[in-house]
């Protein structure tokens, strides 16, 4: 049992374990001290100074996030002196900040704006001040950085380095000239940025946002020549409700399909179909590799953030990656070949939109090799947030929509496809199929508890006809790095590894609604597992639409046609 510390916060006695911060201790008495640079998932930075409090006996105000509790400490969290200091600090930040709140992406959810409002700042006394005039970084197909809105809280830098172990951005220069930049200001697209978008989720202001495709999609929808198909990733249905005020974890699959139909998409399909297809190919690839002594461990390739990471940081280990495309990119060419033929639409007249919890998907879709159908396989990628904005723009009353179904056949999916959206889900889905492929027996207990949950690294062993299959799951790239370093040292005990770039898996993706706290991510995961439970079919190889696809079009998994449409190659990129 940890040593307990007694302290007074305002007029309350509080007992907390040693090493607790004053900030955390205050939560015990329902005081959420205003803050900006503090972030629950990141190291303590202690620099915005908004969370300052009075500690008896100390000459100056102390940052509560960086002050450890001490026995007998007397803390005040709300005095004239504190309020004056907090206001002035936020005023100072505002003095540098563009006054374009009305047109800002973060209009409704900007932490700086909320703080200014909450702290009662109603006049700007430094209004004569000069503001920055920096060029925004528009280099990336996924993420836009607008340094003019940056308040230098370092949350993006910390998430990039600490959670993702990438380090694509850092502070440059010092003092009033400090900026967050990429190496030599080359732009995110020209450095080792993985496009994961965790920086967007971490940013308290509008300094980071996705590169939007909303207008392109509107244009396609209103073009009578285009047959516009939309596919939605599993994680979207567990989160998009948050954009309309529903509680985190609300499962809104039916409402989402109904809303998309109201946006006038020609077909409402499901990336989960692509996920089932991925499992067919990937499970067979794994079995092949084991049988033929191929390169092991095999590592999943669904997460484009992860792909770019390994390409930059471990370029000599790309043969460990499954050659399977991600569900999004399997869906695209199948829609533009198999389905296009079915409905007699030319691939070039078809427009495939995907709604993804992810910013890196935007990067993935525009890769030159993603044109197996003869034209770009996926034309536009919207994040969950962008899709919600379109629904709002169209005035759709999302919350009160009736549940509607996806269209057939590419809207048919299994429970295995659903759980792709949570960390461990691809692994579990693959195991459900691999087990039956290898053993020929029916898998009775289809839940693989060991690979579920928010632990950064998870492992499990599964007996496949005498082969003790060892698997591991990592989410968050710093966890992936640990597994890759084992591979590098030839110490990896695993046959199969699942990696998702974002903490929690796709449900915590950089394109998801904000905020995305650990609690919220857990709720989204729970709702996906709930949808899985409710599905009649829960194994990918039992998906009737997938079975039909192989029968009518592809032949077998790993067939020549499959390879052409559903598999890909990777690019060695440098880090230095």
């Amino acid at each position: 049992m940890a040593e307990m510390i007694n302290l007074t916060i305002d007029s309350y006695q509080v007992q907390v374990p040693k090493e607790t911060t004053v900030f955390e201790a205050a939560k015990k008495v329902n005081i959420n001290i205003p803050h900006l640079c503090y972030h629950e998932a990141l190291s303590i930075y202690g620099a915005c100074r908004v969370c300052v409090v009075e500690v008896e006996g100390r000459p100056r105000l102390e940052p509560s996030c960086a002050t450890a509790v001490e026995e007998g400490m007397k803390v005040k969290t709300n005095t004239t002196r504190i309020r004056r200091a907090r206001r002035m600090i936020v005023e100072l930040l505002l003095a540098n900040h563009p006054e374009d709140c009305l047109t800002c992406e973060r209009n409704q959810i900007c932490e700086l704006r909320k703080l200014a409002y909450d702290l009662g700042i109603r006049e700007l006394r430094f209004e004569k001040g000069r503001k920055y005039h920096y060029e925004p970084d528009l280099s990336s197909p996924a993420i836009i950085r607008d340094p003019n809105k940056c308040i230098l809280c370092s949350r993006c830098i910390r998430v990039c380095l600490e959670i993702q172990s990438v380090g694509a951005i850092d502070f440059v220069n010092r003092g009033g000239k400090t900026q967050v930049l990429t190496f030599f200001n080359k732009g995110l697209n020209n450095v080792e940025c993985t496009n994961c978008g965790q920086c967007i989720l971490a940013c308290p202001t509008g300094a980071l946002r996705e590169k939007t495709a909303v207008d392109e999609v509107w244009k396609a929808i209103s073009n009578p020549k285009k047959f516009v198909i939309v596919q939605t990733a599993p994680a979207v249905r567990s989160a998009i409700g948050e954009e309309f005020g529903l509680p985190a974890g609300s499962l809104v699959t039916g409402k989402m399909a109904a809303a998309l139909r109201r946006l006038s998409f020609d077909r409402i399909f499901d990336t989960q179909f692509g996920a089932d297809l991925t499992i067919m190919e990937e499970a067979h690839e794994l079995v092949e590799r084991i049988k033929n002594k191929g390169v092991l461990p095999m590592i999943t390739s669904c997460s484009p953030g992860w792909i770019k990471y390994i390409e930059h940081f471990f370029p000599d280990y790309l043969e460990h990656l499954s050659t399977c495309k991600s569900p999004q990119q399997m869906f695209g060419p199948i829609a533009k070949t198999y389905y296009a033929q079915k409905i007699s639409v030319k691939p070039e007249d078809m427009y495939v939109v995907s709604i993804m919890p992810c910013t890196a998907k935007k990067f993935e879709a525009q890769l030159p090799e993603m044109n197996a159908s003869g034209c770009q396989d996926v034309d536009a990628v919207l994040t969950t947030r962008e899709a919600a904005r379109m629904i709002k723009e169209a005035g759709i009353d999302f919350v009160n929509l009736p549940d509607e179904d996806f269209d057939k056949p590419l809207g048919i999916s299994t429970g295995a496809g659903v759980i792709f959206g949570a960390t461990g889900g691809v692994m579990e889905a693959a195991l459900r199929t691999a087990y039956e492929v290898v053993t020929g027996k029916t898998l009775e207990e289809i839940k693989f508890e060991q690979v579920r949950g928010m632990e950064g690294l998870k492992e499990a062993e599964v007996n496949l006809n005498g082969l003790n299959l060892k698997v591991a799951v990592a989410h968050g790239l710093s966890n992936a790095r640990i597994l890759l370093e084992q591979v590098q040292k030839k110490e990896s005990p695993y046959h199969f590894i699942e990696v998702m770039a974002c903490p929690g898996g796709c449900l915590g993706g950089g394109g998801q609604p904000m905020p995305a706290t650990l609690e919220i991510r857990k709720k989204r995961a729970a709702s996906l597992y709930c949808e899985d439970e409710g599905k009649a079919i829960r194994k990918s190889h039992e998906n009737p639409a997938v079975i039909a696809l192989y029968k009518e079009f592809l032949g077998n998994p790993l067939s020549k046609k499959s390879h052409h449409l559903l598999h890909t190659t990777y690019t060695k990129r440098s880090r230095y």
Partner: protein
Amino acid sequence: MKIVLKNIRKEGYLPGINSYMTQGGYEALKRALKTTPEEILSEIKKSKLVGRGGAAFPTGLKWEFTRKSRELPKYVVCNADEGEPGTFKDRFILEKDPHLLIEAMIICGFTIGAKDGFIYIRGEYFKAYDILQKAIDEAGTNNLLGRNILGSDFSFEIHLYRGAGAYVCGEETALLDSLEGKKGQSRVKPPFPTFAGFNNKPTVLNNVETFVNIPEIVLKGGEWFSQIGSPSSPGTKLYCLSGDVKAAGVYELPTDISLQDLIEKHGNGVCGRLKAVLPGGVSSNLLTSSDLNVKMDYSSIQQAGSMLGSAAVIVINDTHCMVNLAGRCIEFFDYESCGKCTPCREGIKRAREILTNIAQGKGELSDLALLKELQEVMFDTSRCGLGQSALNAVSSCLEKFYGEFKEHILKKKCKLGICSMGKDF
């Protein structure tokens, strides 16, 4: 009374080891090696020596905390990143009597149980660096550094490390980060360096001037030292006299010297007529002619409403416009702020803007109240001493020369004709 400049002030004294030995150099180390660390510690505590870098923390206590810490290894770090405008005493010692510092650091290592010492020297001190490196080599050749120093069980090395142009590295935790190869940005305290310093290990971090008092204390005893100067912070102090004074220079004097005597007797008086004095550099509050009787020790200066800091005594005569001067002070901090915490980074920027506006005849009276509030909030919330004290000089200019500011604002006029009332600083 000379303690730290005892050798330097002798005619013909050179920074080499022979000169140093002739003056009884390394005798303190020899004595120390024959006693125990506890005995040395006891003498230093008795001496009541306080840190000369500005914070005036009792040196004996600092050493004791580090000695008692169970973490290993321990380190000795010397802060030779002199950068406070108006301070040039460390350069003086480093260039003219490097062995005195080396001897002191070895004694410190012996006392706290450290094997490695670092001297973090200001990047622009090229000459001092060369001299120090030569002195370290000489000490090594003479078995004063390295393994089994002078035949004892004690081994100690000193490493020289150059800063790269960042005033904020003079702040102890920023210095440690810089010493670790990072940007020099202050750490959150506690933990203090005595518990978690260099490499997160217990570290004694003292200023050059603090260290060089040690050999004499070891030789003559703490009791002797504690009788010199002001009882609250005894010993001598190196005062750096600069600005509008006839004889600028470094003066070692007992801490009970008055500001008046320092300027008049030692500095040969003011060039022109005295307007103000910054007793602790641009981070301190201004004193004026009515404060001249103040004793130049830490607590007396504090009582007079300022701070001694590193004792950069900058004399200002009446040809200078205080609005312009305040702008110059803030310009320094604007250039040197590390940019990490909001109040310092943004506050300095805005203070500089406000002062520029006033100097250009574009100020408003409400600006003055805003500046004052800004100073108070920056003092209260900045992460380190730089931001906390960045507006001290400015706000005391404002307080003591309010009329000048008012004139710039209301009459849009600089009586001394210094502010161009149109041009940027």
